[in-house]
């Protein structure tokens, strides 16, 4: 057969068309393999660093701590089968039989090593400040560890349940020695920037778990691409479902949507800007914002107004009245401004970021609402990196924030509300409220649930009066799932970002 130009061109054209015509849409799913669509590639998998949701989800599969949260959000023992406190600031943890991924047993020496690394000078651990409150770590035997705190600390088991607090094998988790964990999965492969492939750890201490053989976590930074991947079956679960896609996922018979109101939007203030040093002005702003509009316009109705301390409904410390202490009341807001000497309003700049539309849109609505009070707001919308830098340095007047508490316990909000702590992008700047700091300390030291509740009730009242931060709206945090997936749960409230824990019991049909 002679190859002529016409037949060559025809062949080439047919070859070029092949990818569009004959190749099946996607590789058939392997049994026991689940593909999880992450919202980003984990920037770091260091064990004790807060490196975002994606990193947290991967770490929750690879590591385990002394305590953890059950799917319904209740605190439970994890590597510690049981734990209790004594009257000498001590907490004793009795370890279950478990092994690390290298086959070595989990012992009290590993727990001691972990806590020492977290609290060490030069540590980059998220929980370092909390664990610098440890006075001594006793290891009477391999299966028992007693942590003695400098002060009475009722919240220690909560701190240990943080996903930034995994227990790692002795001698690992430091420079040049990757952390060895004891979670239900091990890292089998990493395609940098693309995916992390996890394999079931056959010696995981919970019998029959994990149910999946392989868990492939693929990063989809673009939310539209992430949703499309779920719709087409490329992935089985996605995190960070965009609010505008939630209705379509709910309506799709092949998909399911799980949501919880955990993260929230709020305003922080710089106390060195004169008007915001006055609690009456901050309270006026709290009363001058239409929170329902934020929920409708920014979150497509997927959330709810939040006018008080962000304690999730359904948790023991929630009080509906206190949680909605600030409601839209422009008359009272104007009265407060007049009392503070700003009857004609004032001009200020609101810092947010154009990189995340929820921040930008919230800022626009706040700007519109405050104009009605005579407060002329100019928006500053740099990229996220600049916004963080300006926030940490206090180079702003007031700012839009969006985050989640460390836990559903009010103590998990201290890093956001207690502005007497060191400057941070997450809390107000140069605006110490000693009463709030003292009440957080009291709550942390109190073991009696009823007395704790009274303390946090009082704290909520002080917050409403002083307004060191102004909460705006809960935002719905959602996971989209294929109906073939079972056993995965979006954990309640602030624990939504701990939902990766339930991947140990997740299976796929």
């Amino acid at each position, binding site marked *: 057969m002679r190859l002529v130009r016409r037949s060559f061109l025809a062949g080439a054209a047919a070859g070029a068309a*092949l*990818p569009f015509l004959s*190749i099946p*849409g996607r590789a058939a799913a392997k049994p026991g393999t689940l593909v999880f669509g992450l919202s980003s590639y984990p920037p*770091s998998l260091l064990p004790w*660093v807060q490196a975002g949701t994606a990193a947290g989800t991967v770490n929750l599969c690879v590591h385990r701590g002394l305590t953890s949260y059950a799917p319904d959000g209740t605190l439970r023992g994890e590597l510690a089968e049981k734990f209790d406190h004594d009257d000498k600031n001590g907490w004793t943890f009795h370890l279950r039989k478990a092994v690390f991924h290298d086959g070595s047993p989990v012992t009290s020496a590993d727990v001691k090593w972990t806590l020492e690394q977290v609290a060490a000078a030069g540590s980059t651990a998220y929980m370092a400040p909390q664990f610098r409150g440890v006075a001594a770590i006793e290891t009477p035997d391999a299966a028992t560890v007693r942590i003695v705190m400098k002060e009475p600390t009722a919240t220690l088991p909560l701190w240990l349940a943080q996903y930034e607090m995994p227990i790692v094998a002795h001698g690992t988790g430091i420079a040049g020695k990757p952390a060895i964990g004891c979670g239900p999965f091990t890292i089998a492969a990493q*395609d940098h920037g693309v995916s992390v492939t996890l394999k079931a750890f056959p010696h995981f201490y919970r019998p029959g778990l994990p149910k999946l053989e392989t868990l492939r976590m693929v990063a989809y930074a673009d939310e539209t691409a992430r949703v499309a991947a779920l719709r087409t079956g490329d992935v089985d679960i996605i995190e960070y479902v965009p609010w505008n896609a939630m209705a379509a996922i709910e309506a799709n018979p092949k998909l399911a949507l799980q949501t919880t109101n955990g993260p929230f939007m709020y305003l922080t203030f710089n106390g060195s800007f004169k008007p915001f040093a006055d609690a009456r002005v901050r309270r006026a702003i709290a009363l001058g914002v239409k929170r329902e509009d934020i929920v409708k316009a920014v979150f497509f109705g997927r959330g709810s107004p939040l006018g008080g301390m962000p304690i999730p409904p359904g948790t023991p410390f929630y009080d509906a009245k206190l949680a909605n202490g600030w409601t839209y009341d422009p008359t009272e807001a104007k009265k407060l401004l007049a009392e503070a000497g700003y009857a004609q309003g004032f001009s200020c700049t609101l810092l947010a970021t154009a990189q995340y539309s929820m921040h930008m849109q919230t800022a626009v609505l706040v700007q519109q609402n405050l104009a009605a009070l005579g407060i002329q707001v100019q928006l500053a919308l740099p990229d996220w*990196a600049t916004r963080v*830098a300006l926030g940490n340095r206090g180079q702003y007047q007031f700012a839009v924030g969006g*985050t989640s508490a460390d836990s559903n316990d009010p103590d998990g909000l201290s890093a956001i509300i207690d502005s007497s702590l060191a400057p941070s992008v997450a809390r107000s700047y140069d605006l110490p409220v000693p009463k709030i700091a003292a009440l957080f300390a009291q709550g942390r030291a109190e073991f009696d649930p009823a007395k704790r509740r009274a303390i946090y009730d009082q704290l909520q009242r002080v917050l409403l009066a002083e307004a060191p931060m102004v909460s705006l709206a809960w935002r719905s945090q959602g996971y989209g799932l294929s109906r073939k997936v079972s056993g995965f749960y979006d954990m309640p409230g602030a624990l939504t970002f701990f939902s990766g824990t339930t991947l140990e019991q997740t299976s796929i049909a």
Partner: protein
Amino acid sequence: MAWVLRRIGASLLLVWVVVTVVFMAIHLVPGDPAELLLSQGGSAPDPAAVAALRGQLGLDRPLLAQYGSDLVGLLHGDLGLSLQDQSPVAADIAQRLPRTIELLCAASILALGFGVPLGTLAGIAPGGMLDRAGAAVSALLLSVPVFVVGTLLVLVFAEQLGWADAGGFVPIDRSLAGHFAHLAMPALTIALGLGAMLYRITRAAVLDVALRDYVRTARAKGVAPRRILWRHVLRNALSPVVTVFGLQFGALIGGTVLVEYVFNYPGLSGLLVDAVNARDYPLVQGIVLVISVLFVAINLTLDLLYAALDPRVRGR
């Protein structure tokens, strides 16, 4: 030879200038990689932890010292480590660059495959059906944003017809068919815009050359139309097409970010944008350096191609 050496010397100088400007720019804009890494999700990092991380990453050193060590590293072929996960920058680029080059090559083949032939046909028959239809379609393809084209392709081919994956990447050693299936839609998305541009350039160039005296003379001498087209028209008309194609290819090495995002394709552009957002200085510098070198190399190649296509250029 001296001309080539002069061009190479000037190119190296240009690369150094680009690296220096990028170093200064990325360090002078607000944003701290240590703060960013520890403030994920709007969390409140311990300032002592941020300071410790800055020390570990060497960010507490004077700016000139950082520049000096970066430059020495570059001269030794060491692009440094990513500030985010301490992975070697060279390895990150070596992983992403071939994917981008492959994507652009596939897109170029498609774009050249329809842009140049159709542009030629339209140019030799101005005002005809093809010319009029081509003008409308190319205007449409050039005016529709690339992310709209990509999203439409996903909607039609992935969501509605189920012929392709919505996006992603499959290594060629895992599945040949899967690899090309994942390459097809992003390549087509780029090719539609690039091809439309090549169509217009080719049409204009062919139209211009076809009216030249030497073409008329060739026709008057009775030279066969096909021979006139290949030897006299196309050969002279291709210079601007090569120029535009080369510049576009160079620009696309770092400019396919929207396509990469829409199709979740892990190329170099997305890595660059992520690195800038994370203020990952070594990664930004490394990628910009590689893109600059490639851009300069493409320009050098183009100059040599001109010389091959147009003998008058030689010796200038």
